[in-house]
């Protein structure tokens, strides 16, 4: 009898399931109860990934939950959670982070934004990861786009976009104290307090302090790169009316460390190691005004100022850069099928380097400009089934003038559970001060008189260009299993190369000039597969695998002597990750994760496999205690050339909310 009930129920279930599946997604919201509606996330007003053509790209979102469950305490650690990113640590506080290859000490093809503020430096078009010391407790989500960011994102979105979004002050009222203490990272503390402002606003303040041990070198000695930093900031959000929002936020920080640099000399012994202090400081202030003018239409204006000062006496010198930026974005529906986004932006960067004999810029100080307009039309070709997005960005910069960056993306959704997408886009990496103005002594030779190599920036350096074709699939294969596949093939042109010139004599030396040129070209291919499996409600398994082929694919299109400035040997061919999260009874949770990186080939590093673990316990909603172990498999391992070895390490974490 009981069994027959079961069969009948199953039949009823099957028919209701079929009925539910037949309904379109728009209707399903109306089936939800109040409690469920209160949990539904709405699309962000800003250009979140949902708005980037509803993910006609390889997009992954790292949520606050993911960050907390991993016990991540720095932005790069959190970025390890995104499938497809290559995140390698090369010192106490230094990182190399990229997507789709081109890893280097100065990776330069990524756009990284924090609440709409671009944090890549106009000096070398890369990010100083060491000075990104924001508290992760207030991060709402990190959106990661692998591959060209497309029209809507700012400049430099060639191989990927990382967009860090912090929580609105209205969702962080009250206090939070986080204390993390352990080996290697002695202490990492944050304190935050938020309070309401009137009926519909709030403001929060935070402070943070970090103290890191030096990293071990190959011979067991330490790299003398111990690190201390402190910072603070605020964010204020006001709802001026139901649809008008105002945000004002700012951060300031100061950090000190030491650095050992191997620098070239023009005279014997032609090279030496110098150790000296590194002092960093900076601040930024950003304001954003947005107004929702109807369903899927809004207007946003944003402006910020950012100052970054780096005093790296050993070998480099003191850089100070001030950036001012203003942007406008307007989104609206045109007819029933067109959703149009257009915008304009202008950025001024002023500053430079008080250099040393080894490293200098010529001119030392310079003001550069970047202006852009963009428009993109998302067209619903077949409602709820096929969508096409076409658009272009037109950028003007001080170095190369006008750059056109078009894209076309197509999405096919044969059923609510399957999405196929494809894209063809052509972004550029416009020049930085390094490309145009650098003067760098790269090495000396014991000739008579002595010769040294001087790398010289090229005022005529062109933008590096990519044309990339992408394909992807996203599917919910069952209620418990989803998969995301993406692959790409990219043609690079005008890549950075080094071309030797005619030697000349000066001050009793022979100078061999090497000019930065654009003779590199080649292709790169690869893909990322990611799965999420929820075998039980309180258990989640995530896996990812990334393949990259850019070895032997880069070429130089010039006379002999010119060498590529890209080292494909620094990008691993294979990367894999596996993570498990289990919520156990009694407020206990367990996170285990492992990662594997195939060897870097030139110079050879790795391969390595490492594992992290976190055991957390929340005796009350206000208090969380956790034990975190990082890189547990080996006593020490290296991730990048430079002989910096990361130790196995442990940490106790306490988070108290009030």
């Amino acid at each position, binding site marked *: 009898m009981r069994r027959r009930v079961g069969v009948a129920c199953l039949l009823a279930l099957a028919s209701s399931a079929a009925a539910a599946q037949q309904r379109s997604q728009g209707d399903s*919201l109306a089936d939800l109860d*109040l409690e469920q*509606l209160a*949990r539904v996330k709405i699309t962000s007003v800003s250009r979140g990934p949902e708005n980037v053509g509803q993910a006609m790209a390889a997009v992954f979102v790292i949520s606050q939950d993911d960050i907390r469950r991993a016990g991540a305490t720095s932005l790069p650690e959190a970025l390890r959670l995104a499938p497809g990113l290559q995140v390698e640590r090369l010192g106490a506080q230094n990182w190399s982070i990229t997507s789709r290859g081109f890893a280097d000490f100065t990776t330069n093809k990524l756009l990284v934004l924090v609440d709409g503020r671009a944090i890549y430096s106009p000096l070398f078009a890369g990010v100083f990861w060491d000075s990104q010391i924001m508290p992760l407790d207030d991060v709402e989500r990190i959106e990661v786009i692998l591959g060209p960011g497309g029209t809507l994102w700012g400049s430099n979105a060639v191989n990927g976009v990382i967009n860090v979004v912090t929580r609105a002050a209205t969702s962080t009222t009250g206090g939070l104290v986080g204390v993390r203490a352990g080996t290697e990272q002695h202490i990492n503390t944050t304190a935050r307090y938020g309070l309401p402002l009137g009926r*519909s606003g709030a403001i929060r303040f935070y402070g943070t302090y970090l103290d890191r041990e030096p990293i071990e070198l190959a011979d067991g000695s330490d790299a003398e790169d111990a690190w201390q930093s402190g910072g603070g900031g605020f964010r204020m959000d006001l709802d001026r009316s*139901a649809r008008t929002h105002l945000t004002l936020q700012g951060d300031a920080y100061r950090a000190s460390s030491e650095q050992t640099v191997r620098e070239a000399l023009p005279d014997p012994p032609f090279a030496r190691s110098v150790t000296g202090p590194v002092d960093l400081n900076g601040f930024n202030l950003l304001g954003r005004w947005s107004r929702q003018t109807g369903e899927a239409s809004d207007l946003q204006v944003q402006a910020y100022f950012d100052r970054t000062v780096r005093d790296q006496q050993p070998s480099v010198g003191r850089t100070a850069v001030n950036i001012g930026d203003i942007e406008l974005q307007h989104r609206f529906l045109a007819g029933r099928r067109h959703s149009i986004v257009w915008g304009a932006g202008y950025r001024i960067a002023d500053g430079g380097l008080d250099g040393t004999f080894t490293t200098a810029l010529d001119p030392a100080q310079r003001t550069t400009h970047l202006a852009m307009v963009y428009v993109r039309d998302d067209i619903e070709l077949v409602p709820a089934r096929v969508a096409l997005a076409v658009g272009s960005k037109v950028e003007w910069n001080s170095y190369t003038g006008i750059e056109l960056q078009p894209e076309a993306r197509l999405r096919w959704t044969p059923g*609510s559970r399957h999405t196929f997408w494809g894209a063809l886009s052509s972004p550029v990496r416009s020049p930085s001060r390094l490309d145009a103005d650098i003067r760098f002594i790269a090495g000396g030779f014991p000739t008579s008189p002595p010769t040294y190599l001087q790398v010289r920036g090229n005022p005529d350096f062109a933008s590096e260009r990519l044309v990339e074709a992408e394909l992807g699939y996203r599917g919910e294969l069952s209620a418990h299993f989803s998969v995301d596949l993406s692959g790409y093939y990219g043609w690079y042109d005008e890549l950075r190369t080094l071309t030797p010139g005619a030697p000349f004599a000066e001050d009793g030396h022979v100078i061999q000039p090497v000019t930065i040129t654009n003779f590199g070209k080649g292709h790169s291919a690869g893909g990322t597969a990611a799965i999420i499996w929820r075998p039980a409600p309180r258990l989640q398994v995530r896996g990812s695998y990334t393949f990259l082929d850019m070895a032997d694919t880069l070429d130089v299109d010039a006379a002999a002597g010119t060498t590529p400035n890209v080292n494909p040997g620094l990008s691993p061919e294979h990367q894999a990750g596996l993570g498990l999260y289990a919520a156990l009874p009694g407020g206990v949770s367990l996170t285990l994760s492992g990662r594997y990186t195939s060897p870097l080939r030139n110079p050879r590093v790795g391969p390595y496999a490492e594992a992290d673990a976190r055991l957390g316990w929340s005796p009350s909603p206000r208090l969380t205690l956790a034990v975190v172990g990082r890189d547990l498999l080996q006593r020490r391992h290296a991730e990048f050339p430079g002989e910096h070895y990361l130790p196995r390490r442990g940490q106790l974490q306490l988070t108290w909310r009030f």
Partner: protein
Amino acid sequence: MALLKHPRRCRSLAALSLFALTARGLRSQEAHPEYEVKAAYLLNFARYAAWPGSGGSEAAGDLVICVLGHDPFGAVLDRTVAGRTVLGRPVRVLRPANRAEAGPCQLAFVGGDRRSEIEPWLSDLSDRPVLTVGDGAQFTDAGGAIGFVVRDRTVRFEVNLDALRHSGVKLSSRVLALASRVEGEAAR
């Protein structure tokens, strides 16, 4: 036949599976346009409201949801209510241009975020049994019954109990329990 003998257990299972399916459908889409969510809320408010004299069980006539003033929904609201019923009554959307046309309204979304846009409509409706819904905390401040607020990318709402009591419309305690804020004399 077994189905009939154990209807209760079966129904709860079916409800559970339906939720699992809708939840999955939603997850695959992740985020929704704000006014799609708000339209679904309007339907839910209607489900949990009782109008004076109706006794809550009157099956005659349509349930009329009105959009007054600025219309942020476009076709979304019409799509949401299409084919839906509340306590057996078909739901209909009206967009009256003035007070006279607003006669049949039972639930009214008042668009606009300036008090000068909202208040004339609220005073027009103040002597009628209409459940007023609008955007923002200032909507309830201005004398509206329910104001949507967006918090942490979710849509929540606040309730002004004085305005609700004045209208004569009764809201289930279930709605009040979910309000992110309940204000008015009656709440103290």
